[in-house]
């Protein structure tokens, strides 16, 4: 796609986003509407277009940009350092690199949801490995983001059970409500809509997970919201945006019990039961006491 057209399309999308000002009270300048990808980068645009099929986000090579380049430095905040040390203590000193994933995760929490080159370099320093070893890990795992994220990262489960229970509709509803396409960030920077593979919640399908980067490492949360409908999914996000804490877990039941009440195991169990170990123990003790008493009486 010629660059001009790409730009036009990106701008159109921006205007589109601006039209849905209702989303966020904040003023929305067109420049703010820049999505995660840089429209002036032909390849990035191409990636954005095919992104619907890609699970991990972004490119697999780094390009120096003003906000993320090889001249920058970064370190863990002083308040986070005890956590870093605690993580490092878990592993023997000759297997320091085992701490790579926890440290990357911690760094990502500190940096409002994404990793920069400087952060990866710093972690390589801490772990005494070559930087490329960190880049490899950071690009491999889709939960590490290497581009600026919204403060709330909403991940819709797209795997079969959730899909059969309506995750596509949830996704559509969220896209509409946020005014972005999947893998994009809202103009105001509050939400990034993403997709995730099975998060092990199939019994309460469909579900979304939300990573909350608003409050740094201390206030970081990664919560599941389950048993959703398109309406409740939007409600959850609305509540999050308003700074409230919507109910975590299932939205309609306690845990994962059947919705219409128990259908089985409703009465008392009919047996056979296992042995009553307490009774056996009491019997044995009594027998032993009786024997001891008998022995004592005989002695007398």
């Amino acid at each position: 796609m010629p660059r001009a057209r790409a730009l036009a399309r990106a701008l159109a999308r921006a205007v589109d986003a601006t039209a849905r000002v209702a989303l966020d009270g904040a003023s929305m300048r067109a420049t703010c509407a820049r999505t995660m990808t840089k429209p002036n980068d032909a390849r990035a645009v191409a990636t954005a277009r095919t992104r619907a099929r890609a699970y991990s986000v972004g490119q697999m090579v780094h390009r120096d940009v003003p906000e993320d380049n090889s001249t920058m430095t970064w370190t863990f905040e002083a308040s986070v350092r005890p956590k870093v040390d605690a993580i490092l203590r878990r592993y023997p000193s000759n297997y320091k690199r085992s701490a790579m994933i926890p440290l990357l995760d911690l760094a990502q929490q500190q940096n409002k949801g994404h990793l920069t080159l400087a952060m990866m370099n710093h972690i390589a320093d801490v772990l005494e490995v070559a930087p490329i070893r960190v880049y490899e890990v950071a690009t491999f795992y889709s939960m590490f983001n290497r581009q600026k994220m919204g403060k709330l990262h909403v991940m819709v489960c797209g795997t079969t059970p959730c899909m059969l229970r309506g995750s596509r509709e949830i996704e559509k509803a969220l896209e509409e409500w946020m005014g972005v396409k999947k893998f994009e960030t809202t103009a105001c920077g509050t939400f990034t809509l993403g997709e995730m593979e099975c998060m092990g919640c199939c019994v309460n399908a469909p579900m979304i997970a939300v990573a909350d980067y608003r409050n740094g490492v201390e206030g970081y949360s990664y919560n599941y919201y389950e048993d959703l409908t398109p309406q409740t999914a939007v409600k959850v996000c609305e509540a999050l945006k308003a700074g409230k804490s919507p109910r975590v877990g299932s939205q309609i039941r306690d845990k994962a019990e059947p919705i219409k009440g128990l259908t089985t195991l409703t009465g008392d169990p009919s047996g056979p039961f296992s042995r009553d170990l307490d009774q056996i123990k009491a019997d044995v003790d009594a027998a032993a006491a009786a024997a001891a008493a008998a022995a004592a009486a005989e002695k007398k």
Partner: protein
Amino acid sequence: MTRLAVARKASREAYKTLFGARAGAMRAMSAEAAPNPDTVPVTVNGQEVHVPKGVTVLYACEQAGVDVPRFCYHHKLSIAGNCRMCLVEVEKSPKPVASCAMPVMPGMNIKTTTDLVKKAREGVMEFLLINHPLDCPICDQGGECELQDQSYIFGSDRSRFTEYKRAVEDKELGPLVKTVMTRCIHCTRCVRFSTEIAGVQDMGITGRGNQAEVGTYISKLLASELSGNVIDLCPVGALTSKPFAFTARSWELEGTPSIDVTDGLGSNIRVDTRGNEVMRIVPRANEEVNEEWISDKARFSYDALKRQRLDRPMVRGSDGKLQETSWEFALDYVAEKLKATEPDAIRAVAGKLCDAESMISLKDMMNKLGASHTTPEGMANVSADVRSSYLFNSNLVGVEDADYVLLIGTNPRTEAPVLNVRLRRAVIAGGATVTSVGPNADLSYPSTHLGDTTATLEEITSGKHAVCEAIKAANNPMVIVGSELLRRADSKILLKKIHAMCDELGVVKGDWNGFNVLHDAGGTVGALDIGFVPGTSASNDVPAKLVYSLGAEEFDAPAGAFIVYQGHHGAQGASKADVILPGAAYTEKTGTYVNTEGRAQVAVASMGPVGQAKEDWRILRALSEFAGVPLPYNTHEQVHRRLAEVAPHFAKLNEVEATLWMNGATYAHEKARKADASIPFKSSVENFFMTDVISKTSATMAKCTEARNEMNA
């Protein structure tokens, strides 16, 4: 240890056993040598073989003479097991197994010709070809591509894949390695090479699944002196040679076995020519010298063989300019000068890249004229009396046995990158300690820099330094002296001390000789071996009136001296000359070179000299005729016989003759004095890419220098 790690270790051990340097006796351990308690019997396609315990199934197949296709497996690298091409069937195993990663079990029944194996390989090939572009006609790997070859056997003639092929962005790895990453099949050989062998952890796999890419993630050129080897390792056309790109097809080339002269190792190379033109240089495997690697300088400086060549005899005219002339005139002119000059005023200097044949011819002619002032370039001060005093006595393979290495005035990474691979292995795999007195450089493995002054060295040689205890405690301690130390004016004073230390601290003991000199050019040891050093009667009392430079670039010539330059490139040396006799470069003459460990090897001429240039010993033979002192040899065989007469090891090509250690007697006559403390030790190689007249002329090497400078800036 995991099963895989055991298999890896055992494979490596087995490899050492079979191909290692001291393998002669062990080589007998083959199928017939059973029953050996350390071997296990396995059956490959019905044939029983006995292989060492713990080796891989693939190794067993090779032992049985059964070829197993593979992409990711390479015997010099760790096992990855990710290409799945080497699948074979093992009886009682429910699935085909990846033979490169599976250790053998006693009694294993391995089958490689069954339908299951065929189907498995065809399946793997089909997957590999899904995303591989069909650009063989414009791919430089075409004709020598492992994927192409194997797809002839296992590939389908049509594709079932109807979607788009993926495309991957090309990576910029510098001026030597061209990348077409869409062709990459993710075997990770290049990643493992740069991590394990070259010791520069720059390459890796980023992304996952369909988005996985081999690269450096950040834009970074491959900062290794060995980067060119990834071209050979790449089984497809993803990494190819940038200077060679689109210049020739592999089947048009004719390969000639030759010897690299750009450093002192004598790496075995193959010079690929088309007609009278060198198209590329690739390594030949020689386990005892260069294994399978060569340095970038050896591989890529060949473009200089077509630049700035001296292709016709020239004489400096009365106007001070060099003018073309005929061979007859030039030879006659030089001969007259030689005859007219008193012998004591004649100097002969042999350059760093000279073959032994030309040097013995020059020396014989000089001696016949009564002149004996012959010196190797830059080494006026070196004694050639005792071979052990200037050779790499531990041998190159011996480096891997070393457990303590003291580097003196050398940076092996730039002076001999391929040797540095062995040093790295000694450190990483063998746990050796490396300390250095001299340049403080990143050697690509951990090392301790002790200092760069003679004071530090004297502290060690006098036994006062803390490292002395460590050297004494080591089983196989090793000292490597750089060639720059031999060029120092006080080299003999230093060497006397180092020799004494070697005896004192047990660097030389029993059958271990840990005293080593690392030379930095292909011709130096040959010169010393034939005694191309000032004779006993030579003196500097009479100032030089005639200097005969055999390819030497840097030599002392007083003003007014008549200078003859015989060589192949018009550079520093030729610019000073009064007469230029055009000689042949190392690819254009059959010549013998002795490497730093004293191994004489023959480089075969891959083409004729350019223009009117001639093979160097022939020029000297003709000149001797003109000068009235004809040399007694007319063929290459006869010159070579003469070499063997002077130094018997020339008769034993490709072998290393054990040297005699003189227990300190070598420098006994030298008075103990203080070394010149004002000059620090440094490496003889400041810019790895430009060390001799060929590499200094090379445009590719200039590009590399520029790229390296930019990177360091």
